[in-house]
């Protein structure tokens, strides 16, 4: 019996909804997907290789450029790895600042993911309204760090600068407003029946697959696996905060999306607690570290929970002031691993929905 002719469609690299330069070679039968072949590497910049020619401090700005949506989390992951390697104690206040700016980064990333997802399924207004709040957060980040996206705020042994006057109050105010905004996203995007029809029970992932494919972040938690490094293996000072890990049940696009929305609420909670606690903590934001960092020979692996999943830094030091080898476990890349099977049997429109729900960032995928 004959089937219809299958044909190959280039989905990307220049496509409005591949979140950058990502290409999927879709083998289609009508509009159904028979096979999907993700092609990445359009943004491979060789950051790992470049890091070998830079001193430990100089690598920090490069980590920004991997997951440029949540740059602070990348910074923190890297500097904590180096600190682990060198055994540096980080001042209390710096830890708090890292948490605050890190969670703020996570918020910007999640807000963007929410908005972009709305755009992917066709709701333009949701996208721009999310940007409205993102601008406010970026303002705060900019005031703190001097850059809007590529923050380079963390330093080995602390953070670059203390907060400015009144910054914490502004932040507190924004965090007070956040639940209202999230409510609005829920009204505009989450609660919309068309949106739910588009995303519910699409691209489902079982907990087993998630674990087998080493998926992490909201993608994993949407399938109901309670694994958030901030809770499971608290790093930094995350054990001091009281927050929940939102979990999904179906592991479908909707859950993945909604997990992010819920995580935003938790981030707001963490930031508010941190603001309360940091007021008690005074002191320097930078530990006493030598001008030229020469970690001892050895290797270290450190992972933290970034906005996309677990990001791990593996550093090999040969005793000089430059890393001998740097390798990054990039959650976006690993989360993409199951894409082919996830897409099979769905329609073209679902490609966008599924890809959007994984929330990749190409700088991180290709590194």
């Amino acid at each position, binding site marked *: 019996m004959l089937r219809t002719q299958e044909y190959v469609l280039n989905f990307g690299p220049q496509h409005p909804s591949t979140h950058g330069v990502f290409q999927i070679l879709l083998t289609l039968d009508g509009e159904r997907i028979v096979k999907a072949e993700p092609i990445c590497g359009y943004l491979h910049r060789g950051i790992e290789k470049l890091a070998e020619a830079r001193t430990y401090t100089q690598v920090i700005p490069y980590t920004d450029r991997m997951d440029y949506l949540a740059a602070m989390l990348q910074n923190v992951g890297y500097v904590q790895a180096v600190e682990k390697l060198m055994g540096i104690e980080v001042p209390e206040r710096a830890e708090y600042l890292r948490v605050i700016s890190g969670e703020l980064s996570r918020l910007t990333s999640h807000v963007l993911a929410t908005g972009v997802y709305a755009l992917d399924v066709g709701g333009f207004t949701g996208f*721009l309204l999310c940007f409205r709040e993102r601008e406010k957060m970026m303002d705060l980040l900019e005031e703190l760090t001097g850059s809007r996206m590529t923050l380079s705020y963390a330093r080995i042994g602390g953070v670059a600068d203390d907060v400015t006057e009144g910054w914490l109050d502004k932040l507190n105010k924004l965090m007070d407003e956040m639940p209202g905004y999230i409510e609005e996203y829920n009204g505009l995007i989450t609660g919309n029946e068309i949106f739910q029809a588009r995303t519910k029970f699409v691209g489902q992932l079982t907990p087993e697959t998630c674990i087998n494919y080493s998926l992490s972040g909201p993608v994993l938690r949407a399938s109901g696996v309670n694994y958030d490094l901030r809770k499971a293996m608290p790093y930094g000072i995350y054990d001091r905060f009281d927050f929940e890990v939102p979990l999904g049940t179906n592991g479908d696009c909707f859950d993945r999306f909604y997990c992010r929305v819920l995580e935003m609420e938790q981030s707001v909670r963490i930031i508010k607690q941190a603001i309360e606690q940091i007021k008690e903590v005074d002191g320097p934001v930078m530990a006493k570290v030598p001008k030229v960092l020469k970690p001892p020979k050895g290797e270290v692996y450190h992972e933290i929970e970034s906005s996309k999943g677990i990001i791990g830094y593996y550093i090999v030091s040969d005793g000089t002031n430059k890393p001998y080898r740097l390798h990054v476990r990039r959650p976006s890349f690993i989360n993409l691993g199951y894409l082919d099977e996830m897409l099979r049997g769905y329609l073209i429109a679902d490609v966008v929905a599924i890809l959007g729900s994984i929330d990749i960032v190409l700088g991180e995928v290709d590194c």
Partner: protein
Amino acid sequence: MLENLFVGTADWLRSLLGGIGFLPTEIAESIVLLVKLVAVLVFILVNALWLVYMERKVAAFMQARIGPNRVGPWGLLQTTCDIGKLISKEIIIPKKADKVVFLLAPVLIFLPPLMVFAVLPLGKNMAALDLNIGVFYLLAIASLSTLFFFMGGWASNSKYSLLGAMRTVAQMVSYELPLVLSLLGVIMIVGSLNLSDIIAAQEHTWLIFTQPIAFLIFFIAAVAETNRCPFDLVEGESEIINGPYTEYGGMGFAMFFLAEYANIMVVCAMATIMFLGGWHAPFGLTFIPSWVWFFIKMYVLIFIVMQFRWTYPRIRIDQLMGFGWKVLVPLSLANIFVTGIGMYIYRAIGW
């Protein structure tokens, strides 16, 4: 005074031409007709430009921004600039494309909306033509645009265009049926296909009150027919780039672009005529000219269509087809039954 602005002008022109004397009446009539037609053409173009501008402004306002405001006063000339630019932009005819059909599609795409506007009464006695089978004419002409969309997409000979074209055809075909069937209720009540008759029948009660379901079906189907959100799969930016007109640039694209807005105007005007009483003034507010009323009603509908676009996500194609065939078609058939039975009861009670 304002009421008869346009009708009066036409009459004046007619008498003027008649006054010349040597022109046979047929020629004079044709000239008047031609003037009317050109007026309608200009009207459509100006409105389409305005609608593009309005769309961008509405979008901006719903998204906490301002929208075009630099070119001309309040940015009013923005779309004019866009069209001017598109005219002077290169039209690329892909090598593998079917060149004649490729160029023919944008030429023809404006035909249905323009021809439909020929019969729409935009005010009291303000139809360029008054046809006996008005409604049927509208539907027949409107059904043509499917073919033109297909031509455009097919001739481009690129996969996204072809996908878009197939989607267009499937979608427009599916939603034309509820559109056609929902109007049956109106026809049953009015008993005529003539648009003037339909409007006249609504002098006291708008048909939206007697035919609410039909209106709903009509409106939804009309939104889908014009490929607007949430049914804008055809040009679903995030899925198949630009659908049938992926390969069109410059004026070819401008034609599709303007035709889309002209189509919105057509369906909103149709809905106004069929269900909202056309140019009849509500609450006896007759001091406002009839054509103003027509405009107000039409623009309210257009605004709603735009708000849909800037609120809703896009529906998926299988859901779209399912919704059309499994919900709207049975519903519109049921509406016919209900209307028929209702009218019998109405007659039996003998009001």
